[in-house]
């Protein structure tokens, strides 16, 4: 075990896989010589050569499309889309091609490709460096969608994604790259290198796709969340003193509904929390499944705390971001329902 930031953990996952499997290739905008705008691929081109790790033209559909072609050949491409806000031009390749190829060819052709992309806000990046588009992938049968929240999970899940025989969208909450951000933007940030969740094995290991993690056990209310919001939830729990169970989904699709419903059945109250906008966000799906499974256990309506239904603003970032104050208020009002 060594201490790693999430950037180092993601890099280490690619490093391990490039080392173990000749068929793994890594490419995307600025990922080669420069090592990526977030440095996630720094040093990998030097180590594995330009045939394994390289820069791509600025065309996201082309990055995913060429990656699919390579995957069809037999490689395992792990490509980067520089920001999740730029993934939309590649949406058609993901939906119409990667996700459906196995199905439409009855297994004759498959597309084991991993698409990495930094997501989420909190870095004052405005509308085009802050979005959380995960919901649009979870609606697509044939894709898997992952959002890790710790260096350990990021590495273990990215290795699993690259090894997976199906296409995986791997969204990295960029606000967690350097440390566990809890939404208190005005307080000094902690770094992963001094945090227990920053302890990561150097070699190969898997975190299985499709399994949620219980970040905190609690008796009074379940908080279902993922990504950056895991730490916001922790902060809100600490501040309100409410004994909440915090579930980090880690994988959104396939969803670990068992873990969720066990928790909600126990607590009888539930808060669903994400950064993405409310309407048709992934939280809606979580709510829909919980109310179906835990109907009789629920003591209060399931509450959603999310980004507002607007584009991601720039200056008003902290009014937009669902921080610990908003989460705390929602927790309190959930507990007030009798």
């Amino acid at each position, binding site marked *: 075990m060594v201490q790693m930031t999430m950037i180092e953990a993601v890099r280490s996952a690619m490093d391990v896989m490039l080392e173990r499997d000749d068929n793994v290739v890594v490419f995307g905008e600025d990922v080669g010589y420069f090592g990526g705008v977030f440095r996630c691929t720094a040093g990998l081109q030097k180590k594995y050569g330009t045939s394994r790790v390289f820069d791509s033209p600025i065309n996201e*559909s082309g990055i995913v499309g060429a990656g699919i072609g*390579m995957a069809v*050949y037999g490689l395992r491409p792990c490509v980067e889309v520089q920001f999740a806000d730029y993934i939309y031009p590649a949406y*058609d390749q993901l939906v119409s091609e990667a996700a459906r190829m196995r199905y439409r060819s*009855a297994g004759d052709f498959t597309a084991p490709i991993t698409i990495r992309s930094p997501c989420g806000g909190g870095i004052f990046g405005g509308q085009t460096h802050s979005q959380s588009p995960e919901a649009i992938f979870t609606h697509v049968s044939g894709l898997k969608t992952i959002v890790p929240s710790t260096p350990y999970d990021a590495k273990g899940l990215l290795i699993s994604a690259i090894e997976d025989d199906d296409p995986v969208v791997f969204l990295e909450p960029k606000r967690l790259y350097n440390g566990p951000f809890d939404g208190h933007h005005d307080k000094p940030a902690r770094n992963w290198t001094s945090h227990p969740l920053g302890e990561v094995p150097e070699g190969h290991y898997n975190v299985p796709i499709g399994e949620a993690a219980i970040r905190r056990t609690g008796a009074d209310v379940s908080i279902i969340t993922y990504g950056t919001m895991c730490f916001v939830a922790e902060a809100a729990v600490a501040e309100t003193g409410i004994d909440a169970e915090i579930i980090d989904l880690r994988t959104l699709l396939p969803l670990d509904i068992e873990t969720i419903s066990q928790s909600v059945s126990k607590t009888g109250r539930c808060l669903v929390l994400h950064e993405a906008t409310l309407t048709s966000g992934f939280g809606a799906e979580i709510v829909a499944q919980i109310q179906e499974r835990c109907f009789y256990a629920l003591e209060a309506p399931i509450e959603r705390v999310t980004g507002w239904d607007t584009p991601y603003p720039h200056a008003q970032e902290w009014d937009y971001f669902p921080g610990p104050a908003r989460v705390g208020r929602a927790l309190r009002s959930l507990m007030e329902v009798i």
Partner: protein
Amino acid sequence: MPDFGPLSFKVPEPPVRPGDEPDFSDFEVPKAGTVRRPEVDADADDMKDLATTMIRVLNRDGEAVGPWAIDMDREVLLHGLRSMLRTRAFDERMMTLQRQGKTSFYMKCTGEEAIAIGQQLALSQGDMNFPTYRQQGLLLCQDYPVVDMICQILSNARDPLRGRQLPIMYSSKKHGFFTISGNLGTQYIHAVGWAMASAIKGDTKIAAAWIGDGSTAESDFHAALVNASVYKPPVVLNIVNNQWAISSFQGLAGGDSATFAERAHGYGIPSLRVDGNDFMAVHAVSKWAIERARRNLGPTLIEWVTYRVAPHSTSDDPSKYRPREESEAWPLGDPVLRLKNHLIGLGLWSEERHLQAEAEFDEEIRVATKEAESYGVMGGGSSARDIFEDVYKDMPPHLRAQRQKMGV
């Protein structure tokens, strides 16, 4: 700037519409044998002229002439002609099936048979085509079981694609035939990526990408050309310019402003414009481009000039937007007739053998169709269980639950 008066808007129109006389007077056809043949390792810059002319080998008398008239194996020639006849027989029979209500949908490639077949016969085992829906010839000139093709069209119990795909959207990795997508253009960049992978692995295999004139307007065409320009992977970039895209003529994809072959120039990719109804030209040019790819000299783009004689699909009625007689007036003739005449001229073929071959394929396809029909028609014999498989490699719990809910 009132100095120049008001602007005006113009939408390109085909020269004629239903009711008009077909008119190909603006369509230039160079004499067969007159276009030069550069060295395989020539520079893209030194062959730009080849994008605005038309490489043709078979002249009016059925002779193969000029620098592109390469020596060809007689087996290849005969197999080429026979495969074209077979494809035509197949297309006709499938149309009948559709009219009989046994399949919902079919798409013919009438008039375009030489292109897919001429190129496939120049490819090698292990190479990969990324076709559109109009390259059935790629399969029909190989040993792909024709019964399987028909079962796919009928979506029956033996459909290799388990009823999941629209008729004619075949897939066969073994035969170098990538699963057809209904989405236009997406496969072009796959071909480039596949070829990049082959180069990355130090393999010897190459890819062939296929797209229609209308679909070159799609964005993934550009994605493909940019990547081909940058990494120079071993890929043949085919554009089948059959003049029409459903009801839209090629001018709506920019074809009135430049040839489709010229698109390659802005990417530094060599390109050739070729008579697509001339089997000999198709095969010779394909061989040349394939050798370029194989020698790591990078991509070549080829515009195959042809005409969509058939309706777009069984859902289409072309007499609504073009003169009925236009295909008759098409200056490049019928690829089957042209190769037939050439082979007769060579003494390899005869009118009798031709009739015989037609009858033979008609019978082959008839029998195959009968067999295929016995496994079900119009989705009959497909299994509801197949809905839930192959979404993922391993079925996740939520799909298991849904399958259970459905009760299958």
